[in-house]
C-alpha cells in the first residue's frame, strides 16, 4: 500500500500547477493520509491505484478533490471577505432598490463545498434584512454528493468555525451539537442544496440576481471556462452580479461581461446586448 514514485510525482505536479504549493519529496505519507479517505469512498483500497485511475482519465472533479485534500484543511468563512463586503455594501442595496417589495431575490452559491459560502450569505442577509427568509432564497450546488450532504447538514467542526467566522456571528447563528456547531434552522431554511455539474448542461434554475462562482474556473481549460460562464450567464438576471475567486477573471475568457470594481473586490455583470 505504498505510493509509487510516479503517482507521487504526478500529484506533486498537479498540486503545484493548480495551487502553486510545493510538496517536497518525503511528503509521500501526507499524500497517502489525505487521499486514502477519498480513494476508499470510491471503493479503491489503494492510493496509488486511485491516483493512476485519475491520471489515466483526469476529470475536473477528481483533480479538484485531490488538490483540495492536499492544500486546504478548512475553508475560511470570511478570510477572503471582500466579495461579502461588496455584497452588503453595494450589491444588496442596489438589488433591493431595483426589485419590488414582493420580488424574491435569488442567490446561487455555485460551488458551495461544505457550505461556508451559502451560510455566510444567509447570515449576512439575516443580519441585514428583516424577514430575510421570505425575501431571499439561496441555491447552493456542488459537484460532489458528499459536499451536498455536508451543506444540507449545516454542521461544522470546531476547527471549521474557528476559521474566520466572527464570534458574535457564531453565537448568534449556531448552536452546539456535540463536538460540532449547527447552523440555525432559519438559515438552513433559506438554503436549498443540490448536486450540479457546471461543466454539463445546467438544470432549470434561477434567474439569479447574484452568483458566487469562486475558485472553480481555475480547474478547467479555456473552452470549458467559456462554456461555464455562458451557461451561468443564461441563468442570471440581466442586471445580476457574478463574483469569481480573487485569482479568476472573465477577461480574456468571455468578453460578454463587464467588470465592476467594488472596494477591494470585483464583480462581473452581463454586458447589455452581448
Amino acid at each position, binding site marked *: 500500500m505504498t505510493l509509487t514514485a510516479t503517482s507521487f510525482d504526478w500529484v506533486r505536479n498537479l498540486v503545484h500547477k493548480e495551487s502553486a504549493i510545493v510538496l517536497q519529496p518525503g511528503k509521500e505519507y501526507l499524500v497517502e493520509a489525505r487521499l486514502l479517505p477519498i480513494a476508499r469512498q470510491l471503493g479503491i483500497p489503494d492510493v496509488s491505484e486511485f491516483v493512476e485511475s485519475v491520471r489515466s482519465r483526469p476529470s475536473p472533479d477528481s483533480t479538484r478533490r485531490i488538490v483540495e485534500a492536499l492544500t486546504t484543511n478548512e475553508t475560511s468563512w470570511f*478570510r477572503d471577505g471582500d466579495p461579502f463586503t461588496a455584497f452588503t455594501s453595494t450589491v444588496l442595496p442596489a438589488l433591493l432598490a431595483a426589485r419590488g417589495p414582493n420580488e424574491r431575490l435569488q442567490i446561487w452559491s455555485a460551488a458551495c463545498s461544505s457550505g461556508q459560502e451559502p451560510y455566510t450569505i444567509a447570515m449576512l442577509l439575516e443580519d441585514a434584512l428583516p424577514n430575510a427568509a421570505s425575501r431571499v432564497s439561496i441555491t447552493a450546488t456542488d459537484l460532489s454528493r458528499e459536499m451536498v450532504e455536508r451543506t444540507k447538514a449545516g454542521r461544522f467542526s470546531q476547527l471549521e468555525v*474557528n476559521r474566520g467566522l466572527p*464570534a458574535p456571528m*457564531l453565537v448568534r447563528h449556531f448552536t452546539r451539537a456535540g463536538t460540532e456547531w449547527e447552523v440555525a434552522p432559519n438559515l438552513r431554511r433559506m438554503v436549498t442544496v443540490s448536486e450540479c455539474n457546471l461543466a454539463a448542461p445546467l438544470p432549470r434554475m434561477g434567474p439569479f440576481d447574484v452568483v458566487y462562482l469562486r475558485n472553480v474556473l481555475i480547474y478547467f481549460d479555456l473552452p470549458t471556462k467559456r462554456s461555464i460562464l455562458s451557461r451561468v450567464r443564461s441563468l442570471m438576471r440581466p442586471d445580476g452580479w457574478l463574483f469569481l475567486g480573487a485569482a479568476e477573471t472573465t477577461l480574456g475568457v468571455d468578453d460578454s461581461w463587464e467588470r465592476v470594481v467594488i472596494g477591494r473586490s470585483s464583480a462581473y455583470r452581463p454586458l447589455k446586448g452581448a
Partner: protein
Amino acid sequence: MRALVIDDSRAMRRIVSSTLENLGFEVNQAGHGGEGLDVLAGGWVPDLVTVDWNMPVMDGLQFVSAVRANPAWRAMTIMMVTSESEHTQIVRALAAGAHEYVIKPFTADALRDKLALLGLLPQEVAL
C-alpha cells in the same frame, strides 16, 4: 503593533506569541490576568490582548471585566483564546467585553483569520 499574550501555559504562550511575532507584532507575555493587569498598569499598552480563560490567581473573564472598567484601555482589542467552548461561555466573554473568541485547539491560520477580521494584521501577509 503590540500584543500582550496571557496564558498560564508557557507552551501556549510560546505558540501564540510566535504566531503573532511572525505577523509582525511586538509581543509581551503574562502568566495570568493579574500579571496582565500589572503589564498594562506599568504603561505597556498593546493594540491586542489574547487571554486564556482558566488561569490561577485571576482568570480571563475577570481580566476582561477589569480592562473594560478602565476607560484608558478602551482602544485595546481583546481576544479570548481558550479551550472553554460552550455556547454560553462565548456569550459571557463577549458580553464582558471581549471582541473575538478563538477556541483551542486553533491553527496559526485561524488566529490570522481572526486578526484579519479585527483589522489587526500589521502587514500584508502572503498566504
